[in-house]
């Protein structure tokens, strides 16, 4: 691929992000604008912003790469990423909005009336956020190396710098517009090239090189346990992601939080058709891309491989732009929510605390990214979902639906899930992909029930610690918000 074209695409996305961020800043300037954003952000904008933030490197590059490698087994990833939002809708969307909490630690503190719970939740949330940023930086490193030939670290560092600059300058205010723009950019950047490729292939009548059922690398197919465990992680991991909750805060009430989630589901469903199409076309017409050992770059290389020439270059540039939109939007969403948590709980509130926290939240994962190697992006993001599902998910679900939860139970459960799942991740990282047994490689199926069990048992044993505010909080979480007098 022409490196100049890829660089131009990269600069283009960064500039567009900055310009839209500035536009958003200009129209929302006051404290009132910030909090009343709930009244002015329409569901479609909000849903696009959620989609923009959620569709990360794993969705944009990783899913197609994994489908290329392991075929229909990998289709569980996009299904799980989408169905995770269904679970979010069913179990947490409206109650979380009604709680009025801005971050997950806010929620647990309000529900359990306990500072220690807040501290533990903050710790877990920061860990989740950092773990989630690392694959984004790996994706950026891979993209830069493949498309421009520059050293990998340039990609990660570029993402961190752009994110730090936008977050430090604009904070939360302009993010909604940027994220919404980036959803549509990502969708276009995937849809246009693959439709063009299919059109060209159909026009030239070229025969497939390999049937889709043939695995180009000969990796053993995942067993039933692995698929089930993966689905557990994806279904229950989504509802604990720190950057997702903030977005629900900008809905005016619980019912509109539900409606926004419905639109998000539609947007995600449409989006995931395209990585699936890339995977299938890649398997049939360009199986060689998997053998090169960089399956994650398949989306970037396919237009050049199958179309070529100037058209291929232009389509590749579009895909590179979309990929960078994915790295930037997810990373900045995570950095904003992490900075909120870190500045409140460690550095003290205030704008300067927030800025310092933002820089810390972005630079620490950069260190992780340098120390670790990128293997399948969708797989490493899947592990982060497993960690979230074993820690944040039980405390949210039990906190919302069970009156018996206590602070001691919540802390014990989160620590259990975190230690078990984190331990499995560390052992798996040292043992290597090939030698890790299935139950360690996909730990969610046993770590999530373990965390739930410990949380329930310890809460039962410490029943006297159920907070006095419990029934008031439960009422607020579940009752519709409009005052009765003005109803209908």
């Amino acid at each position, binding site marked *: 691929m022409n490196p100049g074209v890829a660089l131009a695409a990269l600069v283009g996305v960064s500039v567009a992000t900055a310009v839209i961020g500035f536009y958003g800043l200009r129209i929302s300037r006051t*404290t009132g604008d910030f909090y009343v954003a709930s009244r002015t952000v329409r569901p479609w904008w909000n849903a696009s912003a959620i989609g923009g933030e959620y569709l990360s490197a794993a969705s944009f590059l990783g899913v197609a790469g994994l489908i290329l490698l392991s075929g*229909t087994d990998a289709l569980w990833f996009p299904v799980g990423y989408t169905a995770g939002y269904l679970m979010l809708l069913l179990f947490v969307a409206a109650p979380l909005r009604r709680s*009025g909490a801005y971050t997950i630690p806010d929620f647990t503190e309000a529900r359990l009336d306990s500072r220690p719970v807040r501290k533990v939740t903050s710790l877990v949330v920061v860990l989740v956020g950092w773990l989630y940023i690392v694959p984004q930086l790996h994706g950026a490193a891979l993209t830069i190396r493949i498309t421009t030939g520059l050293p990998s670290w340039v990609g990660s560092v570029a993402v961190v710098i752009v994110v730090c600059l936008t977050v430090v300058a604009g904070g939360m205010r302009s993010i909604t517009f940027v994220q919404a723009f980036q959803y549509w950019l990502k969708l276009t950047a995937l849809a246009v090239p693959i439709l063009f490729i299919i059109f060209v292939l159909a026009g030239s009548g070229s025969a497939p090189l390999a049937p889709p059922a043939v695995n180009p690398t000969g990796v053993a197919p995942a067993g039933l346990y692995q698929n089930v465990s993966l689905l557990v992680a994806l279904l229950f991991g989504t509802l604990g992601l720190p950057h997702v909750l903030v977005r629900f805060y900008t809905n005016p009430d619980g019912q509109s939080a539900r409606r926004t989630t419905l639109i998000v589901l539609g947007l995600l469903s449409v989006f995931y058709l395209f990585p699936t199409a890339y995977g299938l076309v890649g398997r049939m017409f360009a199986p060689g891309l998997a053998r090169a050992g960089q399956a994650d770059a398949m989306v970037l290389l396919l237009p050049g491989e199958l179309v070529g020439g100037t058209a291929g270059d232009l389509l590749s540039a579009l895909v590179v732009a979309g990929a960078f939109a994915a790295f930037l939007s997810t990373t900045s969403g995570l950095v904003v929510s992490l900075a909120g948590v870190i500045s409140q709980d460690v550095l003290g509130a205030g704008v300067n605390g927030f800025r310092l926290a933002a820089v810390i939240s972005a630079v620490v994962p950069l260190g992780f990214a340098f120390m670790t190697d990128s293997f399948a992006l969708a797989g490493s993001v899947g592990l982060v979902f497993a960690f979230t599902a074993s820690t944040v998910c039980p405390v949210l679900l039990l906190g919302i*639906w069970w009156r018996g939860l206590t602070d001691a139970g919540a802390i014990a459960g989160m620590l259990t899930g975190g230690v078990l799942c984190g331990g499995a991740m560390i052992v798996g990282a040292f043992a290597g992909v090939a030698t890790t047994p299935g139950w360690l490689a996909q730990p969610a199926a046993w770590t999530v029930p373990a965390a739930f069990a410990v949380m329930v048992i310890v809460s039962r044993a410490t029943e006297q610690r159920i907070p006095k505010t419990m029934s008031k909080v439960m009422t607020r979480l579940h009752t519709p918000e409009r005052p009765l007098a003005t109803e209908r």
Partner: protein
Amino acid sequence: MTRVRVTAPRTAARPAKETREAAQDSEVGQVFVRSLIRSQLRLALVVAAGFLLILGAFPLLLAVVPGLAETRVAGVPFAWLLLGVGIYPVIGLSAWLYIRTAARNEARYRDLAEDQ
């Protein structure tokens, strides 16, 4: 034009409207709230279980009916269509059904609370 710093505290949940809670503090009010929570939880569990059953039925269908996975529809193997496209409408439909019924549960709760 000057920029204004956002100064409202971001910690902790803000108290809900007074009117909302006044009607709910009584014992009867709490009974209504409990029954609302129970019906919302039941609804969420039913929708989730239904969705998971359908999700599980898809690969089962492919495994049980021989040759179905490889059958081509417009050049695309059926297994890919089912798992890569067919599941999304099921997700959307489940979500839509849930939202409708959840709103109905809340409307019923409001009627009860008003009559009180």
